[in-house]
């Protein structure tokens, strides 16, 4: 558990982060979202003390971070950033093994961990271990960057716009990978982004920052249903709200008895995907692969503005 307590950061006259308090549960993904200059990166960088707080405290599992040696604290916390920040002069294996090496793990254990992570990220260890970051594609570099952050099984992982430099299709895959790996490993992740779509898709909880203040901290469904301010509403984009809402729900929630024609849809798909399929193929109902059907009317009812 990470407790952020009245955390404030001032740069001269400007207050970048203004008395933010929030608690992050172990084993969840928390997404901090905001526009540029909202203080979201500064808030995150105070957790591993890349920025020193002006006042306030961060506690990891009850232990205040302010008393630890900064670079030792950072070795316990995974860190992945936009543009990956890989060491261009080190091989993939050496990049991933960087923190375990700092922590003095035995060589064999590091090698084993590197292969394990490469496999986890669908990169064949034999093919990638000895290559240099410059030889990899953008998506591969980004995966190595995330693998490096996970290498020492850190208490927490901080990710600053980790997918910011990727094109939309690769970004989508990377997000799915991250969600899968997080479920598999049960890691605690704090991720910063300016993309509300990404926040809603990935976050167990979403923290919305505006001008240094935490304006809303809640589950994604709650944020869509009850935006706390006009700013949050703008971030959501009014015209996209029904679609965002649908993207959080699954076909399995609305299955009803009956038949329908055409290609079936999976029960795990989101309602948004089901809506797309209806519109695209001009059908009023879709068969569900696991049995039953889902109707356009039922989906539409879910997308209506809550009373």
């Amino acid at each position, binding site marked *: 558990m990470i407790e952020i307590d009245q955390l404030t950061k001032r740069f001269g006259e400007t207050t970048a982060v203004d008395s933010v308090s929030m608690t992050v549960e172990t084993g969840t993904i928390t997404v901090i979202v905001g526009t540029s200059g909202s203080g979201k990166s500064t808030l995150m960088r105070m957790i*591993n003390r890349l920025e020193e707080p002006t006042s306030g405290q961060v506690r990891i599992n009850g232990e205040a971070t302010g008393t630890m040696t900064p670079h030792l604290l950072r070795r316990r916390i995974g860190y*992945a950033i936009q543009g990956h920040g890989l060491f*261009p002069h080190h091989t993939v294996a050496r990049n991933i093994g960087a923190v375990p090496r700092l922590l003095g793990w035995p060589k064999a254990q590091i090698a084993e961990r590197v292969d394990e992570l490469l496999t986890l990220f669908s990169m064949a260890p034999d093919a990638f271990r000895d290559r240099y970051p*410059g030889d990899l594609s953008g998506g591969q570099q980004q995966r190595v960057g995330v693998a490096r952050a996970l290498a020492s099984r850190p208490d927490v992982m901080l990710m600053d716009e980790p997918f910011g430099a990727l094109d939309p299709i690769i970004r989508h895959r990377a997000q799915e990978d991250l969600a899968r790996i997080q479920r598999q490993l049960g890691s605690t992740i704090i991720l910063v982004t300016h993309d509300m779509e990404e926040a809603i898709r990935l976050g167990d909880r979403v923290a919305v920052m505006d001008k240094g203040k935490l304006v809303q901290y809640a589950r994604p469904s709650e944020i869509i249903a009850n935006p706390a301010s006009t700013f949050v509403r703008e971030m959501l984009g009014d015209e996209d709200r029904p679609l965002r809402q649908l993207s959080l729900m699954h076909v399995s929630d609305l299955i009803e008895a009956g038949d329908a024609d055409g290609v079936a849809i999976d029960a795990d798909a989101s309602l948004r995907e089901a809506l797309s399929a209806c519109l695209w193929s001009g059908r009023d109902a879709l068969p569900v692969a696991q049995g039953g059907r889902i109707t356009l009317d039922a989906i539409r009812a879910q997308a209506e503005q809550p009373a």
Partner: protein
Amino acid sequence: MRAVSPPGLVFAIVGGALLCVPFMTLAANRIVAGHGVMVWALGYWPALMGMIAALGAGLSPRPTLRLFAGALGLACITAQVSQGADLLLADAGDYARTSPAAGFWGLLAVFSLLIADALTQLHPRPLLRAGLLIVALAALAVVFWSGLLGDLSIAQEYVSRARQFWTALAQHLQLALGSLAVAVVIGFPLGVLCHRRGGLRRAMLPMLSFLQTIPSLAMFGIMIPLLAWVATTVPGAREIGIAGIGFAPAFVALVLYSLLPVVGNTVAGLDAVPPATSDAARGMGLSATQQLWQVELPLGLPVLLTGVRIVMVQNIGLAVIAGLIGGGGFGSFVFQGLNQTATDLILLGALPTVLLALVAAVLMDILVDLARPVSETAR
């Protein structure tokens, strides 16, 4: 690909013209001006034919062929000058001196450039370049020790000063490389500090660039009273060889000149680390020292070494000026030669200096290339 290499065409035209100016001179003694002798008057046909063939082969668009053409050309002008010296001195007086003339020097330049141009196109890997450098130096050593050119006037100057020559070489290297070493020992930590503290950088770099601006002779001159003052006031300074004239002021002046490239390139090299990389390094918990040695230094090494290259080449040249203030080195030959208007003595000082500078430049370029991250050189 073209039928003819355009630079090769220029080399052929210029080379052809150079065959029509005096190739060697013959003088009655070492001071008086000589008269020119044309290459065909030397009557050594194989070498002349070789030169013409080399200029012709230099037209080829294939760089490998041009490389060999250049080497053939160099071999031919060397053989020609060696044979020519025998011929010219055979029935001249005891004090007669013979030297290469404009034709030789021009063709030397043409064939060297032919080789350089071919190498630029072939772009050999660093280790291959090192091999080529060794071959070239070995060839030079063979020509030197075999006495092939022993009859030339410059060789006569060398023979009468052999011991001084090697002392001058040692002094020259001590001045140029010793000052470089001191500059690195001072400048590298200074550069690291400047990289970390913006205030120090803003104060330090302009100051060092001002130092660099001062004309070398003025800098050497101003060092004389300064060091004389140190020698008389600081106890023990005189015992360790500090004096107003000679080696010490030259050495100090060279160190001062070296600081800007060393400090400037250290800062530039450390700055060259991508911001995301240094942020990640900090974020994953590298201490400041670990960041310096594991990330900043390896990544900045090529730029840093470029600074060392600049200083090395610059100091080899500037060390010549030490000859004016009794600091030794090849400069003493140059300035003695200028005083006595003895051309060959000037050459005896200037040619080795140029050679040293060239070798240093090639060597350092190889090191700079080797220091580049693997993934970069792979492309």
